[in-house]
């Protein structure tokens, strides 16, 4: 990283240099020091990871047994790390809130996993995967990390095949690939529409093997509720046994968070019901910076909302966009008609029209916003919810003609079944209806090149870190990142930290431990003693509505400021008026949810502040004030080519903004165009 002058904005917009954009977030935050060192090695980009691996100190095998590693999360990122560190001989404790590690939300990924194997000889390479990922992320990711991701991607496939992951194969017995959302090469490996499941079972089985070997101890139905920081270092967690209610302290030499994404701040999302931000947020409150929290991915192909009972949204893999054509009627009057009765000339295949070279395969953010626009124009289809039809057609009739029903069945069978199951409609006969939904968060805890957060000894992997995806993630790249982090990156970088261990022994009487534990106990007691009138879910739903309305597909200064006020009021009410029944010492799902919603309320506010600060449109973040004449996103590299890393400054205090400037040496920044 080159040193950049500290150009942070002042609190008062009148101090802005001429030509600087207005500081929309003035008054909502405090400027802090820039982040100058990300620990990425210098030198040619292709050599950096080799350099780092070589320089990372080794830990003597006989010492590893004496080093305790806590890993929160058993998805691809956490499961892979637990297996690998267990194999290396460390003493690992693994936590998840589900009843089995195999149920982490990675299981739900459908489409596939990218790797630069170039098995199709279609011009793919590590460099192209790197380039596509940086471009897809709209030049808001750290190039060294992305290059490394592309580099280790090929090892992932080898590892998974050896574990018995049943990827799709061609007749000759070799692995099949397909092309996936927003790229022009076929580099996506897949296991029908259930790739995440198969990859996760591979990682899970590897981890269970280590449980049997005694190197990994697993704690299922355990929820991390606090991070323990001793003398500035992460040294353990406080967890609640969700069956007995027991509050437990677990101490270690290092803590890894692989706790997934926080899309459920929107209440409705494609995330699992239990997906939450608590592990990350508790760490944030203890000093870990939260980076780019406003970067949210809204996925274009989800099943539309049907009513107010809706508890979650279901994704239809975007691989469907390879064969399905997206359209809405040209005329509003046709929106109620049976789509099969609308003639070709009255259909608007709007993606093919607006983006002729990428058509239905434009990146997710673009496809999502285009769907919102046509529905806002009143050309949406399907039942109206709260007065608006929010749906567009995804039509397979041409593909069925071309490939036959069998061909489509083989490729997408389970997805078609799932659609039929949920909607009661047969997609082989009637076009599917889809609408965008919150799906993934690019934001997360800030990490350096080693995946270490701003708290020494706290590492963050997978969707929980702010990751390699900049402002927008390409399809099939989250699975790649989770497994890259867990199998191939963290095990190397963590050893450099652990080479200084084992650290000084601490016990449960240490004041920092006592304090962390007491904080958890107080919170639990507070929720049960409040005896208010509103259920946890009702708060969560209201927060979700605020976020979707003002911090969703399009964000504006006014909207975001309004959202911040609304969230503050809601948060206040929540702490005074929430109703949690039952007891602390048994399985209590309302109590679990209360803790998660409490943290979502704080996160939601920070997301809005981050979105307010970033007066530019990039990737999944679209600011109404920053668009071209024809409504395309407009980036401002001169002012916003940085990672916004937020430091917690205390309850009720404005957060502190630290900027990490993004410097590209191996790639040139361009305005994205998919036309």
């Amino acid at each position, binding site marked *: 990283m080159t040193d950049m002058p500290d150009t942070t904005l002042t609190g008062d917009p009148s101090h802005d240099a001429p030509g600087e954009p207005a500081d929309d977030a003035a008054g909502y935050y405090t400027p802090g020091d820039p982040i100058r060192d990300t620990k990425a090695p210098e030198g040619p980009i292709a050599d950096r990871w080799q350099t780092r691996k070589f320089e990372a100190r080794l830990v003597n095998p006989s010492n590893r047994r004496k080093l305790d590693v806590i890993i929160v999360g058993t998805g691809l990122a956490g499961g892979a790390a637990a297996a*690998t560190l267990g194999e290396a001989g460390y003493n690992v404790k693994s936590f998840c809130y*589900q*009843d*089995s590690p*195999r*149920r982490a*939300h990675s*299981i*739900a990924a459908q489409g596939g996993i990218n790797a630069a194997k170039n098995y199709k000889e279609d011009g793919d390479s590590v460099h192209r995967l790197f380039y596509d990922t940086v471009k897809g992320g709209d030049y808001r990711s750290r190039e060294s990390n992305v290059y490394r991701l592309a580099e280790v991607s090929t*090892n992932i496939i*080898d*590892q*998974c*095949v*050896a*574990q*018995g992951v*049943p990827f*799709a194969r061609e*007749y000759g*017995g*070799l*692995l099949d690939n397909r092309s996936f959302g927003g790229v022009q090469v076929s580099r996506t490996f897949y*296991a*029908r529409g*259930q790739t995440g*499941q*198969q990859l996760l*079972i591979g990682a899970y*089985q590897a981890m*269970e*093997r280590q*449980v*049997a070997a005694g190197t990994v101890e*697993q704690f*299922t139905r355990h929820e991390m509720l606090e991070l323990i920081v001793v003398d500035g270092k992460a040294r353990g967690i406080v967890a609640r046994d969700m*069956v007995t209610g027991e509050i437990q302290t677990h101490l270690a030499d290092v803590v890894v968070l692989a706790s997934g994404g926080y899309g459920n701040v929107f209440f409705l999302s494609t995330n*699992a*019901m239990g997906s939450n931000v608590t592990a990350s947020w508790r760490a944030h409150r203890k000093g870990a910076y939260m980076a780019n929290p406003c970067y949210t991915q809204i996925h274009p192909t989800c099943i539309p909302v049907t*009513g107010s*009972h809706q*508890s*979650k949204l*279901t*994704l239809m893999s975007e691989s469907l966009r390879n064969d399905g054509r997206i359209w809405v009627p040209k005329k509003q009057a046709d929106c109620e008609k049976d789509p099969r009765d609308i003639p070709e000339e009255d259909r608007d295949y709007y993606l093919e029209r607006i983006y002729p070279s990428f058509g239905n395969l434009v990146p997710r953010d673009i496809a999502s916003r285009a769907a919102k626009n046509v529905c806002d124009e009143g050309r949406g289809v399907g039942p109206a919810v709260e007065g608006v039809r929010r749906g567009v057609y995804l039509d397979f009739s041409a593909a069925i003609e071309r490939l036959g029903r069998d061909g489509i069945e083989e490729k997408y069978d389970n997805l078609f079944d*799932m659609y039929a*199951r*949920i909607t*009661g409609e047969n997609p082989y006969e009637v076009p599917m209806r889809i609408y965008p939904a919150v799906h993934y968060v690019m934001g997360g805890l800030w990490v350096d090149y080693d995946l270490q957060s701003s708290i020494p000894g706290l590492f963050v992997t997978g969707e929980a870190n702010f990751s390699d995806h900049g402002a927008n993630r390409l399809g099939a790249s989250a699975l790649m990142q989770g497994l890259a982090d867990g*199998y*191939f990156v963290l*095990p190397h970088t963590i050893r450099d930290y652990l080479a200084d261990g084992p650290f000084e022994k601490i016990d449960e009487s240490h004041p920092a431990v006592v304090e962390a534990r007491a904080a958890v106990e107080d919170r639990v007691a507070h929720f049960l003693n409040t005896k208010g009138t509103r*259920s946890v*879910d009702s708060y969560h739903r209201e927060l979700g509505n605020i976020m979707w309305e003002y911090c969703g597909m399009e964000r504006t200064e006014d909207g975001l400021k309004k959202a911040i006020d609304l969230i503050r009021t809601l948060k206040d009410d929540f702490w005074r008026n929430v109703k949690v*029944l*039952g007891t602390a010492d*048994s*399985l209590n*799902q*309302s109590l679990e949810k209360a803790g998660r919603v409490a943290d979502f309320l704080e996160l939601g506010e920070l997301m809005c502040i981050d979105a307010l600060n970033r007066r530019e449109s990039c990737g999944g973040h679209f600011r109404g004030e920053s668009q071209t004449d024809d409504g395309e996103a407009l980036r401002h590299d001169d002012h916003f080519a940085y990672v916004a890393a937020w430091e917690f400054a205390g309850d009720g205090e404005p957060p502190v903004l630290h900027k990490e400037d993004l410097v590209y040496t191996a790639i040139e920044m361009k305005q994205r165009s998919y036309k």
Partner: protein
Amino acid sequence: MKVTLKIWRQPDAQTKGAMHTYDLDGVSSDMSFLEMLDVLNEDLIAKGEDPVAFDSDCREGICGMCGLMINGQAHGPEVTTTCQLHMRSFKDGDEIVIEPWRADAFPVIKDLVVDRGAFDRMIQAGGFISVNTGSAPEAHSVPVPRDDAIRAFNVATCIGCGACVAACPNGSASLFMGAKITHLGELPQGQPERDSRVVGMVSQHDAEGFGGCTNIGECTAACPKEIPLDVISQLNRDLQTALRHGH
């Protein structure tokens, strides 16, 4: 529509449970079965009654977390998971009986939530391929006949939900186990440990208190992923072979 729910309530593993009856109005046919229970729970909370505990996470039919006995059928009347069952499968005025999985090896934790830890322990006993991270050969070094890959995939779709056990009069987990044995046994990578895997898993299965298979077939009928009964034949064949090999 309006339904009458008879739900098993049990405060914890130690306390005896009982069926309770709840009337629920305003159920829409677009709701999933679990959304219907969410609505019931919101009602109960409003009345100051403890909500019904049940498991779910993905609500997409893939994580295997959900699972209820609905009118005596594991996952209810359709071939799918409880979370993917929709209220359009029921009609106005229906009485719906909801119970947890019933099996000795799956003790009840609370209400409709059971402990399926036995499944993890069976995987620990051999349901894996031993290959340390970083030691894998190039993925294309071993081609896998497409049909074998498809067959492996078809049974690898097991979500570990436990419906097979709940449906089986003997409380056997043979379908779950057979699915894993077949998945790994179909692939070249799974061959070296084929014998030890089946012996390890079967002995853990028995130690957990699951019953033996007497070929009734209720498991496969209840399985949301339609794992076929012939995985149990393969399991038995593999076990015989392993025993012949002196395991």
